[in-house]
């Protein structure tokens, strides 16, 4: 999130799209309710009339997978009616940048941007015109036909209400009602907010969905202000934290791009990953990249190795190879690797196309399942359709402690790092993850030391001083505070910081990331967390409840990255003279000598001319975003599986640069996908309910929750139900090109058929929390724990396609094609 949960109360208009916070983030509704009480308008756009829709002033239905068309129409509306916050757009975005005249928009280029070669873009034309000094040419009047603003206008001139309505199925009057209401926040004293979740990310155009809204927020001047921003409502309490710490394959902790095989030295790696700019006023914060990479290497290896050697130890990604979840399971399916740790994950339920996932697991020699409960993944070998006698995989179960059974921090969606104490001891043999990892580390290290192995120093030279150790160097137990301190970072030698002239002693904690060094004299396990455990101790454990800002910043409650800033990009909440756009909700104010309020972001002294988006090389926010794989502007493409045979906007059906397994010669029958196929005429999305969590491993064992939501169900509109002879409560089959699931029918007027390009298209939805392991029909052995109440139904992900977003590879679980039948009929 750019902002934080409490800040929702400051909005004048909240758009809920791609999320359903009333069901899935109920506590957020405390703040949404406060905003509404103060007069805010609440808008919900969703294929289903959800619990959130029920609380909204305006509800607009849309077909799954058509968000860019919907939002592209909003961009057109804003531009046509000149509702932009002009000064903001001119000063703080790249709207005036002049783009290479050879650049072509999809409207002039068969539905794709210029540069498409095969399945990737050559981005040469996605560039700016520059002067002799290499500086970007600009037109501050925004009139030049090649400036970003005019290109934006041209791109979305195609997204008329008529065509948008034909694509999305949203009635035209509803489209316009939403556009009109949200665009009102373009006034400098109005704040509009957007809450999204998996409903936006889990698409082949997921990243571009969010880009489209980011463009709208920039046009309306909503970024950086109280009650504004773009909010990713995370699906778990600590997803933000795990992302910050490099859970994903393409980044190291602190969003440092992962090293590639072609980055053969630290110098090359730093050079490739450090952005450069010729814009004189731009701070270009990422110029500090070498300080963060050096400090991370020091956190890993301390002074056991030189920085160059430490870099050499790091694993590298092969250039151009994708290591995402979908690819990993595809490789497992193709027997490319033989061992697997499922750590706090239940891919047999949560992975797209679980038939393929489960089949892939049969190729493993061993699997280690680290979890609170035995689950469908650890038990895949005795799941439906499996013959244990024919499966070679040896599975080890390591029980681990739940979050209440250990001490540590979580970082929530609002980037708030909160320390939590241990409430109870873990049961039985369950141990905290850090203890399990530590035990594993020392055993593997010992094996390397005894037996050797390629690049054994990568392991043997790691520092692992997180607590008291016994004679052989092993830890007696993990002191999680030592880990937190290493994340913050230390001075590893006496040092005078050149910028501040402050002197530090070896062993001092680094006060903030501005003090991190590129010469190896500092460590930091995650630079954005530097300042979280420094001179004043464990900042995340703070529980101060003062709010001098009056807008709910609560700066002494825990700690927020970066440097306790609660609203990022807040340098854009003031005009170029330093005056807040909205004095009533000022995030930062200049008191004559310094900024007060939130920790200022990027902004120099008033009138300094420094553009506030300092994480962008040019200092301004990107309306034109050439960094993405699939286009500098978002363009509507149909989901991999669509009810349509043709994209109504262009001849390009699907995002041209997504990785396809469904094409012949690449995948197998397991990777099938079907569009405009009468066998699968119904649009489907997965979703969640309040009562269950993720793959249900924690909640399906809980009888109170199972009592409320006992089974997999499919929400079906009454017309489709009539057509299929299905009544509420009937047992049904739901089928896709990949598999089928048994479920209970929930016939509801909350879903309505769409009219898509003049034809009726139905949409259904089902939650993905269920799995066979807690069902009544499975076999329970003598030692198997039986749930107090059984659940009914299997994983919804049996149906979902294994296709990912062009940038992130997140699977497209929110738009695919199915059919439904009453049990006994098919």
């Amino acid at each position: 999130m750019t902002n934080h949960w409490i800040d929702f109360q400051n909005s004048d208009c909240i758009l809920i799209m791609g999320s359903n916070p009333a069901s899935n983030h109920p506590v957020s509704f405390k703040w949404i309710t406060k905003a509404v009480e103060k007069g805010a308008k609440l808008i919900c756009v969703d294929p289903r009339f959800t619990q959130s829709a029920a609380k909204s002033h305006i509800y607009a239905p849309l077909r799954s997978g058509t968000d860019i068309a919907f939002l592209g129409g909003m961009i057109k509306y804003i531009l046509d009616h000149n509702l932009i916050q002009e000064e903001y757009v001119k000063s703080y975005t790249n709207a005036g940048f002049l783009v290479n005249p050879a650049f072509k928009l999809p409207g002039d280029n068969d539905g794709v941007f210029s540069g498409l070669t095969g399945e990737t873009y050559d981005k040469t034309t996605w560039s700016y015109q520059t002067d002799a000094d290499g500086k970007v040419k600009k037109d501050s009047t925004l009139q030049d036909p090649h400036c970003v603003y005019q290109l934006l206008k041209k791109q979305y001139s195609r997204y008329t209400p008529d065509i948008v309505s034909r694509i999305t199925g949203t009635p035209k009057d509803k489209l316009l009602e939403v556009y009109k209401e949200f665009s009102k926040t373009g006034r400098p004293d109005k704040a509009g907010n957007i809450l999204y979740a998996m409903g936006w990310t889990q698409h082949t155009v997921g990243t571009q969905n969010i880009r489209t809204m980011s463009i709208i927020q920039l046009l309306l001047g909503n970024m950086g202000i109280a009650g504004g921003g773009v909010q990713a409502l995370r699906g778990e309490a600590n997803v933000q934290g795990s992302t910050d710490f490099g859970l994903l394959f393409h980044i190291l902790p602190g969003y440092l791009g992962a090293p590639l095989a072609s980055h053969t030295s630290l110098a090359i790696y730093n050079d490739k990953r450090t952005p450069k700019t010729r814009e004189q006023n731009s701070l270009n914060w990422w110029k500090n990249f070498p300080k963060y990479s050096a400090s991370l290497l020091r956190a890993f290896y301390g002074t056991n190795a030189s920085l160059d050697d430490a870099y050499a130890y790091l694993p590298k990604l092969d250039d151009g190879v994708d290591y995402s979840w979908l690819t990993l399971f595809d490789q497992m399916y193709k027997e490319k690797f033989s061992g697997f740790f499922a750590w706090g994950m239940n891919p047999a339920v949560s992975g797209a196309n679980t038939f393929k996932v489960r089949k892939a697991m049969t190729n493993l020699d061993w699997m280690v399942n680290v979890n609170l409960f035995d689950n469908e993944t650890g038990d895949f070998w005795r799941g439906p359709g499996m013959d244990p006698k024919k499966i070679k995989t040896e599975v080890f179960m390591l029980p681990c402690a739940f979050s209440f059974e250990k001490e540590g921090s979580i970082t929530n969606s609002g980037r708030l790092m909160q320390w939590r104490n241990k409430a109870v001891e873990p049961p039985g043999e369950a141990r905290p993850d850090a203890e399990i990892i530590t035990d594993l580390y020392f055993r593997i290290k010992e094996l390397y030391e005894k037996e050797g192995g390629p690049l054994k120093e990568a392991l043997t030279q790691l520092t692992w001083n997180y607590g008291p150790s016994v004679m052989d160097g092993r830890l007696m137990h993990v002191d999680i505070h030592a880990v937190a301190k290493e994340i913050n970072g230390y001075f590893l030698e006496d040092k005078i910081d050149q910028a501040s002239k402050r002197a530090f002693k070896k062993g001092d904690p680094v006060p903030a990331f501005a003090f991190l060094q590129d010469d190896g004299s500092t460590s930091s396990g995650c630079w954005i967390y530097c300042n979280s455990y420094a001179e004043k101790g464990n900042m995340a454990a703070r529980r101060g409840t003062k709010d001098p800002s009056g807008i709910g910043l609560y700066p002494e409650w825990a700690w927020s990255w970066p440097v306790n800033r609660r609203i990022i990009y807040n340098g854009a909440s003031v005009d170029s003279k330093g005056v807040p756009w909205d004095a009533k909700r000022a995030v930062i104010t200049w008191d004559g000598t310094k900024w007060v309020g939130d920790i200022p972001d990027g902004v120099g002294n008033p009138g300094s001319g420094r553009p506030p988006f300092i994480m962008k090389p040019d200092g301004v926010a990107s309306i034109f975003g050439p960094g993405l794989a699939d286009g500098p502007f978002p363009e509507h493409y149909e989901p991999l599986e669509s009810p349509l045979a043709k994209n109504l906007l262009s001849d390009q059906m699907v995002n041209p640069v997504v990785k396809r397994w469904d094409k012949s010669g690449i995948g197998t029958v397991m990777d099938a996908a079907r569009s405009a196929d009468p066998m699968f005429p119904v649009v489907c999305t997965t979703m969640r309910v309040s009562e269950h969590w993720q793959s249900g491993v924690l909640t399906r064992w809980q009888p109170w929750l199972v009592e409320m939501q006992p089974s997999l169900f499919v929400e079906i509109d009454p017309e489709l139900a009539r057509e299929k002879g299905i009544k509420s409560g009937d047992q049904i089959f739901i089928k896709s090109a990949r598999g089928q699931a048994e479920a209970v029918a929930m016939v509801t007027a909350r879903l309505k058929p769409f009219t898509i390009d003049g034809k009726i298209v139905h949409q259904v939805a089902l939650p993905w929390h269920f799995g066979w392991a807690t069902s009544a029909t499975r076999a329970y052995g003598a030692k198997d724990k039986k749930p107090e109440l059984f659940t009914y139904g299997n994983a919804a992900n049996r149906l979902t396609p294994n296709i990912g977003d062009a940038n992130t590879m997140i699977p497209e679980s929110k738009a695919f094609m199915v059919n439904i039948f009453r049990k006994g009929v098919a």
Partner: protein
Amino acid sequence: MVEKVELIDVSKCIGCRGCQIACKQWNQLPAGLTTNSGTYQNPPDLQANTWTLVRFREVSEKDGGVEWLFWKDGCMHCTDATCVNLCPAGARIHLDSGAVGTDNEKCIGCQTCVVACPFGKPKYSEESNKAYKCRLCTDRIENDSSPACVKACPTGALQFGEKGKMIELAYRRARELGGDASVYGDKFFGGTHIIYVLEKKVGFYSSLPAKPKVASSVIFWKDLLKPFGAWEAGIGLASIAAASVSKQRRNIFDNDRHNKRG
């Protein structure tokens, strides 16, 4: 102790059911086997083991739109409480807070309260031969805490406080909402200690009768038997209760059958 009221502002209820599970947890009520019958509402009704239930109702509108109503259902905690008045065993009691408490040790399973409650809230368990309902977390409010449901509510749809203040809040909120919004409860049976702010006309909320009444048959039987001391003795009350079951009341027994499955 000052008289206290729980205020339920349905306009702020998001149907998350935090209150329903908080009730189960605080009161350690067992879960029962359920099926999905085509609604999120589950169990389908209040039960001997479900004292707080969030009801979900879809309403189709003339323009083709739909509304989805959520509201918390449970004992209304009347001042002039029929169950207290009629219970022959003293198992229904008035508490200082104004809530209607239960002393289930004393319950004789006669089901008088089940039949007599004008709101249909107490539920009978054949297994224990007792009737159950919300106690407004007596133990919590006696220790200056709010009921578990209120504590769990994330949005402020549930509030708990001094009676006068809550009623004032309720009327202010109803005025704010305008339209068909109204306050429900304060005028019935000397004032209930659960007070609703309803956003739509009362008829939309199926568990809330517009004009709650004690069934005349209940009063008839009580008056008939009282002179003989039989009422207090609880003689034959179950059969009397059965005899006085109206068509509307039959639902309760249907639900009890559902209970038994649990």
